[in-house]
């Protein structure tokens, strides 16, 4: 018995929503970062699902791009977060509003 594509899509939507809400409501930078990754991978899941449903390789290959970009982004993002942790106690996003207009 195979699971229908709709389930995957629903799961992806749920993951994306969790990620989005996490970014919006959490204060910890690290957690917000993880939520962003969650959103990215939810999208990846959607891509793969559609690739299978429509029998089109395009979706899968796009996932590779997303993975590469995400990996690069993780490097930069984690670097910044580590730097923040070194300078101050904790990592509350709202404490970092130096760019306030």
């Amino acid at each position, binding site marked *: 018995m195979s699971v229908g594509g709709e389930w995957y899509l629903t799961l992806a939507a749920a993951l994306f929503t969790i990620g989005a809400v996490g*970014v*919006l409501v959490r*204060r910890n*930078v690290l957690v*917000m970062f993880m939520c962003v990754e969650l959103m990215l991978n939810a999208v990846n899941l959607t891509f793969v699902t559609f690739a299978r449903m429509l029998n089109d390789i395009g979706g899968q290959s796009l996932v590779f791009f997303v993975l590469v970009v995400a990996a690069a982004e993780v490097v930069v993002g984690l670097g910044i977060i580590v730097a923040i942790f070194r300078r101050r106690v904790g990592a509350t996003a709202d404490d970092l*509003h*130096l*760019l306030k*207009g």
Partner: protein
Amino acid sequence: MLDNAFLIPLLPLLGFCVLVAAGKRAGEPAAGWIGASAVGASFLFTLVAFFELLGREQGARSVGDHLFTWIEVGGFRVDAGLLLDPLSITMALFVTGVGFLIHVYSIGYMHGDERFSKFFVYLNLFVFSMLMLILGDSLLLTFLGWEGVGACSYLLISFWFERESAASAGKKAFVVNRIGDFGFMIAMFLCFATFGTLQYAGIIEGAEGAPHTTVTAIALLLFVGACGKSAQLPLFVWLPDAMEGPTPVSALIHAATMVTAGVYLMARAAPLLALTPDVGTTIAIVGAATALFAATIACAQDDIKRVLAYSTISQLGYMFLAVGSGAYVAAIFHMVTHAFFKALLFLGAGSVIHGLHDEQDMKRMGALKKWMPVTSATFVIGWLAIAGVPPFAGFWSKDDILLNAYEKSPALWAVGLLTALLTAYYMSRQVFLVFWGEERWRKAPVADKLELTEPEPVGDQAAVAVAPALMGPGDQVATGHGDHAAVADGHPAAGHGAHGREPHESPWLMTGPLVVLAVLSVVAGFVNLPFGSWARLEHWLEPVFEESLHHVDATSSTKLTLALVAIAAAGAGLAFAYATFMKAKRVDAYEPAILKRAWGIDAIYAAVIVTPGRALSAFLAYVVDAKVIDGVVNSLGTLVRGGGGVLRKVQTGYVRNYALGVAFGATLLLGWVVVRSGGV
């Protein structure tokens, strides 16, 4: 030689280049000799070309000499070429000839000047430009030379630019000339639009078939250009102030050559003028009016050079009177004789100024014939020539003009005659004041200082007009510059002051050219005597003008009567001046203040043009620019700053706000895509 005619203008250009590169190193007097020899060689080449043309048949005396293609873009093509015909060669002869003499004179006159070599740089550039003006075969090349001589004139008038008056006189000349040049340029545009060419040959060919109004417009606009360059009413105001330049410049540029460029242009445009007799009449009237107007002013001037300057304007008026009467040969004839005697008079005046250690006020001269024999003898010849005493050159040419003017209209002739009388008077006044009478230069200058006070300055223009006449020796020491700068014959400039030192005759470098010019002033009249086959200049120039030339058809008794009347007028002027200045020994007589102020023309220009111009500028600067333009820019700035102040609130610095914004935006976009695709 005719094929190598390009050498004629090329040599002064080479001289210019050499002097620019090595003039300073060559120093004095080598730089002067380089300049003089370039012009001298050019004169010799012109002479050779002249004789070659003379050797040809009358019909074949016009040689076009294509030099190179200047511009070629698509179908548009501008050629640079020379046109050698009797008219241009005649001009070139006296430009290079008189130019050479003045170069030699300048070596003596500019002795000790700190910018000695630069003077010759400008002078050579001037001769080159003037030759391009004359020899160019198209309006464009003529215009090139036209602007070149204008620039040189500006540079040379303000040669002693440390002096405020010299600097502003140069500016004034430049600006007034621009007004004329605009006429010239529009005439060129019209020519190109109408005839498709700027070549003289093409214009003359096409003129017959062109619409009458267009030809009239072109002729009038060219005349506007000529008015500026040749100092005719109402654009003459720059020439008297141009006397701020060194005296050789006044002689070369502002008497003998450059100012005659307008007459030359009119002579070149003769076929156009022949088609439009109304323009001819206008020119004749302007010329006659200028002649009389300037002559009246010359009667009341005290500055030795200013008298000559107004005299030049007056004589140029004669030339335009001749041009307007269709008497082109008479105009060219007078141009040539005038070049000789006016250059002579100016150089003589320079010699006097030099000998009196920078004194220019005739009221502080007198009895100089004892001290400066050569200068006074040659000056007297120049005086007789310009006064119209037979058989000197000026008599013949002036008589020729008056005769032609009489045939055009007796009224014009009467004005010309009155001018002749005034000419004889003011020149005699000058000669008697300078060379005869008492030795007024011994007097301390303080006494006459008050009566010399010229008009109260009205605007800047009038300040220019006050110029050197008011400069007592004291002022000159203070500014460090007289007309003749610095050292004369090894005397230190500080030892200035006319009194205390005797006048002295000028060195041979200066008197030599005077003698040559004096001889020319005596004999030049014989090139065109009004007796049939003696009219050599007329035969020589005739093929250039052909049917546009007015032929005198007066009987010989009319001619004789007119000549006798002219002699009588000159004699009356002379006698009156003699009675006033020699018999009655008056120094200042018949000098109405209004004439001293040159009919207040400068004041009128100041009131009518300068003051409103300044008011307009002030309005534009302080209202339009400061309020309107700056206002628009500033309010834009305020708007942007205010908007930024509002928008900066958006930038909270909280990541969650941004994230919310992104989410919201993404939702909106998504919603839009869905709605557009008609999904819901």
